[in-house]
């Protein structure tokens, strides 16, 4: 197992190195002066120029430049944003929690409703129920997320006026960021209106979370259903029935752990498209996360923000997909069987 984890860590480091190489090459291709692309300082004075040149080793060969670039980036120097003049690392730290919050809530929603519905769809004997569930999930799978987000905010936000359509919190509330997660911060806050702020934050997250959850939800339903259908025909399920176990026990204890395995695998595969969907949703709902920040940076030709955003998003996706693979291995003893054989 230790050997396996070391190999996964190695994979993470290797992929990240490739990512840095790509970023380094792209940075030099930006249609601006190299010093500006690296640091974001618009018109540096002589002292700053000297500082940049020593920092990034600009007077030596490409390889040494790359080493210096790697050192700077890994030590947290992502430059400053050309528009806000604040360090990119600080901006990242303030936008990342918002994205994590949104992704966590919609991921939870997708799993919480997707798994039971998939199980129900696989167990139901009625053709009508099965086809209805399949039709709904297929529709959800094929709806473009930008249209869905706009329609939802038009209906529930504008016409019905039930839910707020932009931002994370009403401007009336002033909450001290502790964790960066608004739902947690409002509860931690000592101000007298923290409870109402919490409910306001919940109202704000409903629409973006539902919009983002539709795609993973449909995928989870479909994969759970197909996995359950195959598993319920397996001999070990028949054998469990023959031992006289209760149906609910068979489903929850024997079929579900087997069915979750392909679901987790497909979640890992979906991570990339999930991230790009999250960006679209953030832009639509003006959610102050990394997606809208990055898109704004692209519009403003803010090269340091683009670099920092791409770096952060890519690193997170690499890390999470490796974590999902490790999780997949840890809950699936069968994949450990292959592991033993390969070592």
């Amino acid at each position, binding site marked *: 197992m230790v050997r396996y984890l070391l190999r996964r860590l190695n994979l993470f480091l290797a992929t990240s190195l490739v990512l840095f190489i790509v970023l380094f090459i792209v940075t030099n291709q930006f249609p601006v002066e190299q010093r500006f692309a690296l640091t974001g300082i618009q018109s540096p004075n002589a002292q700053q120029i000297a500082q940049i040149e020593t920092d990034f080793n600009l007077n030596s060969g490409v390889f040494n430049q790359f080493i210096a670039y790697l050192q700077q980036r890994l030590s947290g120097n992502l430059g400053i944003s050309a528009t806000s003049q604040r360090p990119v690392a600080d901006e990242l730290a303030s936008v990342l929690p918002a994205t994590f919050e949104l992704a966590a809530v919609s991921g939870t929603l997708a799993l919480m409703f997707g798994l039971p519905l998939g199980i129900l769809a696989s167990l139901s004997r009625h053709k009508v129920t099965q086809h209805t569930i399949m039709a709904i999930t297929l529709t959800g799978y094929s709806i473009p997320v930008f249209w869905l987000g706009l329609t939802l905010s038009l209906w529930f936000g504008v016409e019905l006026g039930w839910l707020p359509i932009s931002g994370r919190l009403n401007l009336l509330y002033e909450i001290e960021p502790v964790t960066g997660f608004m739902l947690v911060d409002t509860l931690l806050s000592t101000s007298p209106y923290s409870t109402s702020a919490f409910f306001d934050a919940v109202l704000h997250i409903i629409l973006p979370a539902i919009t983002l959850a539709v795609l993973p939800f449909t995928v989870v339903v479909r994969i759970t259903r197909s996995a359950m259908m195959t598993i319920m025909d397996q001999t070990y399920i028949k054998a469990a029935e023959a031992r*006289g176990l209760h149906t609910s026990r068979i489903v929850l204890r024997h079929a579900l752990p087997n069915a979750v395995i392909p679901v987790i695998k497909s979640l890992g595969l979906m991570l990339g498209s999930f991230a790009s969907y999250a960006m679209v949703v953030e832009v639509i709902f003006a959610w102050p996360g990394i997606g809208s920040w990055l898109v704004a940076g692209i519009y403003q030709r803010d090269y340091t923000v683009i670099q920092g955003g791409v770096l952060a998003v890519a690193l997170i996706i690499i890390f999470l997909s490796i974590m999902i693979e490790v999780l997949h291995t840890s809950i699936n003893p069968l994949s450990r*069987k292959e592991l033993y054989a390969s070592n």
Partner: protein
Amino acid sequence: MPLLDIRNLTIELDTPHGRVKALERVSLTINAAEIHGLVGESGSGRSLLARAILGIPGHNWSITADRMMWDGRNLLEMSSKQRRNLMGSEISMIFQDPSSSLDPVISVGAQLIESMPAHKQTPFWRRTKKKKQTAEKWLHKVGIKNTERVMSSYAWELSEGECQKVMIAMAVANQPRLLIADEPTNSMEIQTQAQIFRLLSKLNQLQGVSILLISHELETLSMWCDQLSVMYCGQIMESGPTSEIVAQPYHPYTKALLDNIPNYSGEMNHKSIMPTLRGSAPALQHLPIGCRLGPRCPEAQKKCVNKPNLCHKKNRYFACHFPYHEEQCNDESTASS
């Protein structure tokens, strides 16, 4: 009253080629505390019969029967919940394919503990421990010495033989009244086979468990069983007490089986042809009408295109128009034509 009494059980399968009668009018009677052998080639529907008795049909089956009585209760009229309550506690089954009959993602011990009988007297906080002890006891009884290792491993880490022993432990732990053993010693070495058969016959003698032993080895079955039923292609050919069947088979198929048991005395010449029944068992899509043995039967005549009825002579049953028996059985032959 027999423990299990089945009359004219028919199982039809919906296949892409239309409906197929995989089991045609099978009758089977099992008395309490007997070992009943069911012999037949693979594909003759033995496992279908076993699953129909237990009540775990496949999704494309349709089962009809004149009667299916379990200890005076009609199995056909029971709800699926009542059937499920019978399973495990009164009827248990040992499956043919042990390693795939165990859940691959849960350890063997957890599954074993799950199927142990609950101790109603013990307080609930000590039940799991008690169940674990019972599980270990049963593992010892089926001949597994290293219980700790077996219980902590997954099904695919064990050999087929070990898995089979675990399955047997699960099946017998609830002390059922009928144990259906579908090829219990498949994929085991001879030493283990004998061990398993001894265990089964000990259960039968000491606790009065009736056993339906399914196999294709007539020799082994004739060694352990009191009663024997011979099946071919979903039809019962002959059934009766083992000793009488072996001494004097009435049905051509049984006779062929007994005649063709390979003889190891060394009297056969080198490279001489082994005696077998000519032809091969038909595929499910191309079943012959009437007696399904017809095309291969040495005694077959024109009459055999009608299915012979099961004929009762003393304690023997056979379904043949031309049995190896002096007097013709004609009690129902008019009804069948």
